[in-house]
């Protein structure tokens, strides 16, 4: 009994000393492995947007969540009619806009909420020449939308409603990445 206890003790001591030795000798192989990040799981739609202010301006309160959770491919069918009604409620005198679009054409285009972006040059919501080729930080997108909703064919209708008279951001944008201004 005594012998066997001593034997076990010595065996444990030997094993322990071995583990110390191996720790000392194997520094190179004991580096912590890079932790594997866990990105598993299914992520389900909560919010979405393409062009600015579409859900806010054109979707009725009872359908705002529905708009955010409808596939872009299905938005036109689900929302074009309601957008047409909303457009004519905002501007009962709407006939056509500066793009030459009647109410149905304009509503149909807006209801599929994607932002078209050119890969060939100027990217802007509207800069006086180019229309809907992207969205730059300094673009006055609200004025563009107001003009298209209220301005009529020549952009001269409803002059009090075609600009909010806020034409630029409250901080200058950067010319270099990440372009957005530092926080307040």
């Amino acid at each position, binding site marked *: 009994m005594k012998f066997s206890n001593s034997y076990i003790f010595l065996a444990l001591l030997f094993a322990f000393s071995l583990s110390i030795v191996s720790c000392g000798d194997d520094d190179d192989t004991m580096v912590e492995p890079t932790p594997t990040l866990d990105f598993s799981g299914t992520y389900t739609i909560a919010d979405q947007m393409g062009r600015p202010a579409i859900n806010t301006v054109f979707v009725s309160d009872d359908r705002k969540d529905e708009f955010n959770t409808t596939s872009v491919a299905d938005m036109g069918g689900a929302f074009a009619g309601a957008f047409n009604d909303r457009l004519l409620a905002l501007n009962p005198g709407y006939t056509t806009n500066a793009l030459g679009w009647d109410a149905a054409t304009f509503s149909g285009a807006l209801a599929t909420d994607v932002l078209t972006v050119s890969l060939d040059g100027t990217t802007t919501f509207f800069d006086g020449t180019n229309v809907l080729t992207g969205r730059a930080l300094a673009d006055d997108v609200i004025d563009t939308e107001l003009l298209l909703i209220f301005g009529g064919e020549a952009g001269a209708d409803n002059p009090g409603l075609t600009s909010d008279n806020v034409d630029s951001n409250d901080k200058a944008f950067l010319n270099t990445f990440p372009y957005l*201004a530092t926080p307040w």
Partner: protein
Amino acid sequence: MLNLKSITIVLLVAASWMFFMSADHIDAPDVQSTSADITDYYAFQSTENSNNIVFAVNVQGLLSPSATSGAMFDENVLLEVNIDTNADNVEDQVIQLIPRDGKMYAFGPFAPSTTGLTSTVQSTDDPLSVDITAYGENAIVGTKDGSKLFAGPRDDPFFFDLGAYTDVLAGNATGFSDPGNDTFAGTNVLSVVIEIPKSSIGGSGSVNTWVESKRK
């Protein structure tokens, strides 16, 4: 009592203003004031390199300066830039942006295995990533293979006289005031900005693009 009533009225008016909010800030009941609330989306040619395109996604808007240092990206919220290259309004390429342990990771652009309203993260080894820039810190920029990535608080780049717009809608004004009053002046957002070579999404022509927040 009168004071309390006045305050209540002011708060109610403020709340109704908020309801009409802006670019996409608090646009709908299920997402407003959550970590998944997208406030804005921008897509533009890089001013540093005309061969690159930039996507900027902003979430969690209307942060006061004092609230900004405590604002955090949510590890359960995936931000997904969708790119339709053949005009059928179905994404052909996606860029997945998701935070882990103080870093923002970017996967893609790649053709997703499934399209539509649910996603899994298609992670790759050694992705483009960047430490999330803390409030008050200089912008940290991650780079890899000609792409750049930033994540952190920024000034809200959106500008709009929301108050006047609400007055017009409510019939309390017949037009905007001049000069207008920028409702978003002095407020911050959490931004993710990614710049990629145009060649990675087709190189020329036009694409349709939109951004989604998706929650686990």
